[in-house]
């Protein structure tokens, strides 16, 4: 019997083009332009919370002497960048007016988190800095957790 696997050629080409075009368009246009709602604010807050939690973990590990100075500095910087990106999204215009209080609170926490991560950078060499960053980040983690709970439906 003859194999005619070629025959799927004319069907496959448009299928892949459609799939990829659709995928590309949807993934770039879809999430980017939608106005933020309560749910996405919660996501942003829990992202901030994760960074605060990791920051605390880094500070603890630094205190335990398990990390190198460069590692602490770079890791804090990488996380700070992520926080800055999230903070840029946290403006009342991006969300509905009914959320503005929570948005402002989240933005404020994000700013403080950035500051805390900034001071974490030096924690690799300085025990005192590490200790205060740990406390600071643990506090922010708690505050962000509470805000996250508030935002859960």
């Amino acid at each position, binding site marked *: *019997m*003859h*194999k*005619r*696997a*070629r*025959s*799927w050629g*004319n*069907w496959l080409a448009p299928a892949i083009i459609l799939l990829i075009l659709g995928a590309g368009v949807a993934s770039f246009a879809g999430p980017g332009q939608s106005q933020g709602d309560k749910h996405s604010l919660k996501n942003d807050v829990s992202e901030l919370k994760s960074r605060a939690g990791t920051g605390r973990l880094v500070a603890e590990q630094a205190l335990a002497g398990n990390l190198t100075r460069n590692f602490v500095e770079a890791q804090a910087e990488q996380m700070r960048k992520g926080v800055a990106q999230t903070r840029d999204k946290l403006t009342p215009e991006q969300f509905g007016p009914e959320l503005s209080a929570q948005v402002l609170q989240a933005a404020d926490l994000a700013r403080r988190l950035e500051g805390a991560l900034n001071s974490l950078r030096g924690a690799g060499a300085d025990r005192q800095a590490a200790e205060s960053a740990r406390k600071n980040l643990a506090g922010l983690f708690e505050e962000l957790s509470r805000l996250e709970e508030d935002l859960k439906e």
Partner: protein
Amino acid sequence: MRAHEFQYMEVLTESGRFLGHVFDLRSRGEPEYGEPHDARTVHEIVYGRLGLFERLGITQAEPQTIPWKAVKAIRDGKLIVDDSVGERNRG
């Protein structure tokens, strides 16, 4: 002409009955193995119907052949074959 122009060409009988699409150009004699030929003569046209499953490649189309001699014309990108071929290859 070029080979790709034959691919998927519709096969019709002179009286206009649709038989299928061209899959291949078949030349008798085994594939080249060391002995050169000046050219390969096409003796048969391999054709068949492309159903949904064949297009998906799940089943293989049942190919049928028509001798090139039975091809009467190529008109508007369609291969026109002798009426008798359509009768013989039916079913």
